[in-house]
């Protein structure tokens, strides 16, 4: 390949090894299947809370985390299963948490909305819209002060961009040039409220200008676009040049949560987006560019399916927390 050809090559192919790309595909499948199984568990009455599924947003989650080092950190949202998988979580412990089991990531105390994976750098989903944004900035402050070199990637939704916490956090991250990448996953709705009805600017990314930081809107369902944009922001953050705002345009196929009657959008709209499945798109891309064969792709998918089934079995077999432990971890136990 000539230098010239390499430059015209899609970003992901220049930056990631085939194994990394296969792993990305694997993670997308895991997310889709995790969500599908979660939904199914809910239907069958195995779950007593609600859940926020990210089906349709798999590429955004995986692509955004792709440029991160293992030691980098993320903060996530109520719609956080995908982010968690993308950052390398163990599916078994995720299901166990979802089922409220002692073997879960939060020992059954947090559930779907609070899954975290500290070892892998996922500082946690958050039940409060925009609640994780200042926390991400705080983690970036730790990185800068403690000189750990970590970059923090902060996920939030389009709805979150109208919270005061968004404004205050982006402002301070900019004032202090902190190593944080803000990824706003714009799936067109905050619950039932469309971006048009909540946010008067054309692109949420345009708001970056109010903080004098770079802002870019990209197709979050296009693996090359999202990885390239995040990569640039990560490089910038790592170099001490401060934060960036990336708007990842995507779509959620399912309702906001289980109580959603989908009255605020049309079937047609949903169908159009479903017909542009981001996982299919990524798989085709990989096959087209001979990163893998169609057969290999199928194997990845079926392995993912197996992983999911094993994880569910593990979770189901796991013990519930003991009621007598209810007060554990409210405070840190200290040697007397």
């Amino acid at each position: 390949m000539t230098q010239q050809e390499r430059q015209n090559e899609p970003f992901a192919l220049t930056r990631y090894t085939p194994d990394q790309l296969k792993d990305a595909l694997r993670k997308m499948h895991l997310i889709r299947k995790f969500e599908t199984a979660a939904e199914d568990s809910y239907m069958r009455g195995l779950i007593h809370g609600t859940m926020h599924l990210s089906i349709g947003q798999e590429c955004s989650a995986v692509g955004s985390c792709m440029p991160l080092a293992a030691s980098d950190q993320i903060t996530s949202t109520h719609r956080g299963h995908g982010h968690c998988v993308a950052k390398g979580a163990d599916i078994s412990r995720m299901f166990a948490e979802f089922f409220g089991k002692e073997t879960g990531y939060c020992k059954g105390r947090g559930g779907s909305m609070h899954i975290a994976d500290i070892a892998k750098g996922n500082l946690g989903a958050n039940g409060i819209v925009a609640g994780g944004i200042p926390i991400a900035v705080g983690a970036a402050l730790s990185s800068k002060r403690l000189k750990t070199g970590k970059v923090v990637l902060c996920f939030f939704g389009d709805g979150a961009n109208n919270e005061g916490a968004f404004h205050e956090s982006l402002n301070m991250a900019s004032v202090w040039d902190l190593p944080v990448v803000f990824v706003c996953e714009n799936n067109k709705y905050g619950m039932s409220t469309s971006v048009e009805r909540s946010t008067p600017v054309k692109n949420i990314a345009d708001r970056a200008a109010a903080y004098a930081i770079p802002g870019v809107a990209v197709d979050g369902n296009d693996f090359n676009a999202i990885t390239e944009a995040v990569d640039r922001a990560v490089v910038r953050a790592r170099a001490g040049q401060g934060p960036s705002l990336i708007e990842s345009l995507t779509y959620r196929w399912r309702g906001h949560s289980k109580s959603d009657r989908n009255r605020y959008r049309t079937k047609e709209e949903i169908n159009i987006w479903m017909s542009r499945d981001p996982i299919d798109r990524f798989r085709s891309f990989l096959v087209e560019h001979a990163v893998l064969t169609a057969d290999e792709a199928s194997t990845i998918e079926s392995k993912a399916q197996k992983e999911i089934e094993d994880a569910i079995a593990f979770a189901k077999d796991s013990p519930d927390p003991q009621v007598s432990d209810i007060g554990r971890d409210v405070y840190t136990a200290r040697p007397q």
Partner: protein
Amino acid sequence: MNTHAATGTRDMAEMSYSEAIRDAMDIALENDSRVILMGEDIGVYGGAFQVTGDLVQKYGKERVMDTPISELGGAGIAVGAALTGLRPIYEFQFSDFATLAMEQIVNQAAKIRYMLGGEVSVPLVMRFPAGSGTGAAAQHSQSLEAWLAHVPGLKVVMPATPSDAKGLLLAAIEDPDPVMIFEHKLLYKIKGMVRRGFFTSPIGVAEIQRSGTDVTLVATSIMVHKSLSAAEELEKIGISCEVIDLKTIRPIDCETVFSSVKKTSRLVCVYEAVKTFGIGAEISAMVAESPAFDFLDAPILRLGGADNPIPYNSKLERASVPQVDDIVSRVADLVHGKI
């Protein structure tokens, strides 16, 4: 005093707690053009708990306003609107999100009238879906009413029945001062007979829901129902409970509580919020500094929430707040002198 006591059943309809709230809002929107509803997803979505339902169809987006996800600003806009002629009813999607708006609720809504020497008033209603039991974990299950009851300038009500949900809401809308309404999410589906049309239930008035002689149970919101169930169980073992539905926690109807305690000589406060610094502390202290104190034959018992954030796991979640069994056993112990 039950304001609809005098009304025949022809004027009554069975409705759920959330239908009763919707009915009250419908009546208010119909009767008073100054009334508007504000909140997240209260329009076409019908509200996270389907309380506003289809009201947007009837009254339009200008009066049933979906707000962006901006609780501080939304609450503040409601305050400003109330100050200048509208009568906003602001819905928090979950009461937990009031943590984002405490500034406007406490520093502004509660104090503006006083700070301005009485020149203005803030006829604002806020609705807070509260409580645990939905598996939504620590950030969506809190009962924070004690915070607001600590703030002069606010009124705080906690209707337990569909009838009060409607009557207290209509009273709140009529009230010239800010009224905060805590609605337990698990109550939305309970049914009850509710008077049709306009009526108000008085703010600041408690109601004896069951008469008894051995012990007074003062309860709020969902705990009224649990206390009534417990009272039935306790009756079987010969313990006669008087159950008071407090209804308003600011201002508190002390007299109803005092009279009851003078009669029964024992007091138990039942509430879902974290026990420490909750409503039970206030009821207990109020009695302990009153003449009713001399009538007490036993320590004052508080049955409140456990001292932990609400956990996700459903067994732990249930164990975090008083259940009927807990009430039965603790009250029995108290009456039997074991406490």
